[in-house]
């Protein structure tokens, strides 16, 4: 058997640079040379460690390399990657729950988020996921995720509405 196949994929942060690909996506430079373009960042732990272990995949979804920690990158690479991640993993934060209407387990939520107001449909209770540290992530029927970093930090009315459905 060859050695551990995972480790040589980890990119050395001091040897790489990430820039925006003018044709969309990201371009990876290794040792100053353009090495791959049109890349998409994919988080290994999108919920629990969003900044660590970010895989760069090409248009055919083949992994080109893995960034161990976003914060190890130089500032310009970091900014570009962060911007791309933010759009790709659009996960609005829920600031307030205005109303919840539940019909046979399917719920309609009127929310105030950090990206503006939004009405979402949540099909099943399993789409409301409780994570460590009182964090809640809801997935709506279109697959978009919404986050509550600490549900106890919401106003009381929102807490009450959320608790009913959890």
């Amino acid at each position, binding site marked *: 058997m060859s050695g551990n196949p995972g480790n040589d994929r980890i990119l050395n942060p001091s040897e790489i640079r990430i820039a925006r690909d003018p044709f969309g996506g990201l371009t990876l430079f290794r040792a100053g040379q353009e090495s791959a373009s049109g890349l998409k960042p994919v988080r290994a732990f999108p919920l629990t460690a969003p900044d660590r272990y970010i895989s760069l995949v090409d248009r055919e979804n083949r992994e080109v390399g893995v960034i161990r920690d976003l914060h190890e990158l130089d500032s310009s690479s970091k900014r570009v990657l962060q911007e791309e991640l933010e759009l790709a993993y659009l996960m609005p934060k829920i600031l307030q729950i205005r109303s919840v209407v539940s019909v046979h387990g399917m719920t309609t939520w009127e929310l105030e988020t950090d990206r503006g107001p939004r009405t979402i449909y949540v099909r099943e209770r399993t789409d409301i996921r409780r994570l460590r540290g009182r964090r809640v992530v809801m997935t709506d029927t*279109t697959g978009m995720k919404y986050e509550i970093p600490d549900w106890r930090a919401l106003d009381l009315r929102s807490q009450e509405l959320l608790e009913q459905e959890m």
Partner: protein
Amino acid sequence: MQVADLNGAPRETGDNQSEIPEHVRERLTERIGDKEAIRVACESDLLLTGRFGSAWLVSTDSKLISYNPGADGKEWVSVDLSEVRGLQKRDMQGTAVLEARLDSRAVPLLLFTRAKNEAVTNAVHQIQKLLPNPQPLEGLRPGEGFPPEHHWERRRRENCPKCGRPIPTHIGVCPQCLEKRRLILRLLTRVKPYWHIAAGSLILMFMITAVDMVQPYLQAILVDEVIGKRALGLLKWILAGLLATNAASAVLSGLRGYLMAWFGERLIYELRVELYHHLQKLSVGFYDSKQTGWIIDRVSSDTGNLQDFLAEGLQDFLRDLLTMVVIGAIMFSMNAKLALITLLPMPLLGYLTARFMKRSRSLFHGMWRRRSRIFSLLSDVIPGVRVVKAFAQEAREEQRFQERAMDYMNASVNASRVFATFWPTTGFVMSLGGLAIWGYGGWMVATGQHGVTLGTLVAFTSYLWRFYGPVQNISRMSQRLQRAATSAQRVFEVLDTKPDVKDPENPVPMPRIKGAIEFKNVTFGYDPNIPVLHNISFYVEPGEMIGLVGPSGAGKSTTINLICRFYDVQQGSIEIDGVDIRDISLQDLHSQIGVVLQEPFLFHGSVAENIAYGRPDASLEEIIEAARAANAHDFIMRLPEGYDTMVGERGARLSGGECQRISIARAILKNPRILILDEATSSVDTETEALIREAIDRLVKNRTTIAIAHRLSTLRNADRLIVLDNGRIVEIGTHEELLAKPDGVFRRLVDMQAELSKVVAVGG
């Protein structure tokens, strides 16, 4: 479709132009000027900055314009169509971005969520037509948008065709769009044949109600005449009257209970049988789209819900209504003022009950969910106890359990709090009525000017308590109605589904198929937008054995599904002996096709019954012959009860190879003209494989055979092989011919398997 463009003159546009609201139209006109018409327009739910909002992408004959109202610095994006080399869509997690590809860069045009995927995809196909030199779309093919949300599970994800809202998976019906009245009426038509039973029970019910009403009246006489005026002679008559009404009530109730039970069971029996009959007629496509549990629920629990409603709910409702009206009438006739005061708290009681039912339902659901979380943890951890112990994780599991148990406890306490407040509150409201009687009524009796006697008071109290039950029941009625309507909708949905694969009206009689099969330019997809087979053509001689080869997902199973006519092709045709299979009756076709499936399915029943499944009239000798030919006889004889041994679910545990051979015996006994073999020898040991192969060799003689196998060596006997890849035929020929092609697909597969068996040989 005609849509007025910005010039005001109607112009031809595509079907997919979204309606542009007036304020957006004005802003766009300012930007574009009034010379140019909007050809394509489409709305997104995200701005380019990633905020929620309504963004618009429009195309004129010369420009692509993206309008993002309120987006900082990105309000307008505009590119000339002449510069655009193509459009590309990049899928991200939950969102996607549409970009225009220019010579030196790509310009983001629209950011959108899955909800808008279809609209954007349609718009892009139209914009594509406006491009001067269009290039193939990148990341956008018709019918292909986002990858499925959860690709590991095949959950039904649908939106209501009427209101567009998503449908909850576990109920499968849009709760907002239920036409309750129509459904209930349709349900009632089923009662019609038994109208005399229903009427009889209704009459009984009226009688019981009437008898119940007499009792307080007798009590009033008892108090006023017997006690008040010491008319002792009357006492025995009153007592006899009370006794008689009690007895009559008991007898009538018993009679009615029996009648209703019979009535309910009969209705539901008919509905179940009809439902099952219809299920048997439906095509395989229906079963693909529904989960097994969903279908079982329709036959079991929904019909049960309807029984409850038809037999009990409806009559209860009538009785309650009647009781309320009659008691109200009696009370008002006895004394209108007192009746008014007494019944004053009733609306409050009704309101409280309705509210409480709603609240308690969500509380109960909460408790139920938390309790099932405890159970799911138990059913997860207890079977895995070896892993827990081996990894020394007992403490963590205890901790997890404790958390969930605590969660449940809190929910229970919370629910109890609501119950603890509800019952005393309603009790209190009810006592207000009693208080009103004794207070106001007492004053009336004491003053003696209002014609109210003590007996009236006693009767009033008695009537009042009989009034409470109906009020509470009726407050709950809307819930029962909703549940019945939902069940009815689901049952009718199944009954109204038409089979996709229809029996021909004038079938060509095919008493004995010769076995020539021809695919003529067949294109097919389970979802018509996503073809699985592309333009497949081949001819199979009668008696020929064909091997279907190819990587998984190539379309092998789909091909045999089409031969069995589990589905109908979308383009082209399949002919058997020169007759389109759509012109052959399903009975003729299926009685002459034998199938040995990848996972042999044995029904619960004896070995003999399973072998004779396709020919229940087969003699015992024929069954044994078939088993012998399938190399199954020997192991069957070793079973404790031989051919009478029960197999299938809850039956004797047979190994995969044994099941396989029983299903081969089943096919041999049926003696079909066309045989379908799917992967008959996977996952069995070498010796069993030899036995199975021998059985198959006997089976394939004298009939057309289509076989699928991953082990290429098992297809050595095939006359010809058809190699499929990505839904297309890539190679066709004999074993030797295909092996002779050095860079052929078949050659590559054979080499890979040889490589694999070397590894197994070394490692194992």
